[in-house]
């Protein structure tokens, strides 16, 4: 057998076991949905309407007019807040990572900001900025800034000293060193901070919409419960679950692409 055919045989076997694994993993989700469908079909309980009704409501509301009126505003707020947090966190973190004394000086404030339960600030955001988009974006940005900031400081600080020496030997300018070496070396940690920040941003997005809001997926879902529109509430829950999954899924894909050099280096 030639080398290539061995390789292809091995990869085929790995692929087929992967397929079998995926098939096995799909059993439970399918069973849950099917069981939910049939068990709930005859349900007369006001709290647990038939899945058929929930899905019909889902199609009628979330897939039509509410895309623009609620889903898009929710996502825009989250992405805007997350983007601001990323820019501020990375820029400030890269700067502070180089200034040991400044980090020591600001440490108590940073630690307090990091440990303060984010959701306690929702009433403050409403008091200061009202119930529009601003308080939500500001709060999402503020809260998700901390993990990115702290991780960037840590990452920039712990750049391999040999790399720094190489930079000096090659006489890289400060900006070159920052752009090509420090930021690059810190990126795994920065991205780990961004992943934490993203899930925080999602939590804060939903929480701000459940308190002092006029639109958004979280708002509609909580209002549906209060107005006893139970199928709408269930469809909102499903939508929030799907959104969480999609947002995190996209992030994981981007992360894999950005950090391919890093994970490959580790495998070698």
């Amino acid at each position: 057998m030639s080398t290539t055919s061995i390789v292809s045989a091995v990869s085929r076997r790995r692929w087929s076991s992967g397929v079998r694994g995926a098939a096995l993993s799909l059993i439970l989700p399918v069973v849950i949905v099917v069981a939910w469908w049939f068990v709930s079909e005859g349900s007369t309980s006001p709290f647990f309407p038939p899945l058929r009704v929930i899905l019909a409501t889902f199609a009628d509301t979330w897939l039509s007019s509410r895309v623009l009126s609620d889903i898009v505003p929710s996502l825009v707020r989250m992405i805007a807040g997350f983007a601001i947090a990323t820019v501020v966190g990375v820029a400030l973190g890269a700067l502070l990572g180089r200034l040991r004394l400044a980090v020591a000086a600001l440490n108590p404030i940073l630690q307090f900001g990091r440990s303060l339960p984010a959701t306690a600030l929702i009433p403050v955001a409403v008091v200061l900025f009202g119930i529009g988009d601003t308080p939500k974006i500001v709060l999402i940005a503020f809260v998700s800034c901390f993990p990115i900031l702290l991780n960037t400081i840590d990452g920039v600080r712990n750049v391999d000293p040999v790399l720094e020496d190489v930079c000096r030997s090659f006489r890289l300018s400060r900006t070159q060193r920052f752009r090509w070496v420090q930021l690059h070396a810190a990126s795994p940690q920065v991205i780990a901070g961004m992943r934490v920040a993203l899930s925080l941003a999602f939590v804060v997005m939903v929480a701000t919409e459940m308190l002092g809001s006029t639109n958004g997926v979280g708002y509609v879902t909580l209002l549906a419960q209060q107005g006893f529109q139970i199928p709408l509430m269930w469809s909102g829950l499903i939508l929030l679950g799907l959104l969480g999954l999609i947002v995190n899924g996209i992030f994981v894909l981007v992360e894999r692409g950005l950090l391919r050099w890093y994970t490959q280096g580790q495998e070698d």
Partner: protein
Amino acid sequence: MKRRSWLVRTLPWVTTIAIIAAQEILARTGVLPSLIPPFTETVAVGWQMLPTPEFLLGLAQVLEQFVIGLAIGIVAGVALGIVLGVLPVVNLLVRYVLEFLRFTPSIVYIPILVLLLGARPQLSIVLAALGSLWPILYQTYYGVVGVPQILKDTGRVFGLTRAQQLRSVVIPTVSPFLATGIRIAASHALVVVVAVQIIASVEGLGRDIETYAANGVFPRMYALILVVGIIGFLLNWLLEVLERRQLHWHASYREKQA
């Protein structure tokens, strides 16, 4: 060198006091809107509230819901994490369902659980448990899966019993992972408890914050937020100290002490 370490020790205090003083001056001179009271006023109001029964009750309620929720989350997370780590088939079976559930923040379930449980402490306990479950579960799982084969083989060669293997091989490998999981879980649980109290009016300091905000009693609102922040701060500090003390033998902690 000595002067520098003296500087490093005093500088955090100096800057923190300077920032507080700046806030005080900006608020007193009217640069900040009147919605933001000066720091001393917030602290004074908070100080007056400290001995009142309402405050102590609210504090006890936050801590009670937080502790019970976290404890349930830890027990369930460790148990599930071990099962998934030891039985790969179970992991394959449930992984998609878990992936779906873990990315759904637990406050998403507030609407349905308000219907089922009502706006009672049970609501925030259940959600705090759920919020702290995921970091514990996954950290335990990674810990169990990550026990190096050579350690397991060595244990077997030395003829360790199952209980001995667990005590000297598995637990030492898993514990640093678990410590990180507990630290993350604790801050999640606190966020969730406060959120549930604010959004669903479950009794506790979170509900009081929202009540003061809605009625325009801003110094009290800020005072309670300060208290909740201090709880979070102390919690982080406590867990870090415990972690360092319990795991002082572990390689990743040895360096920090030196």
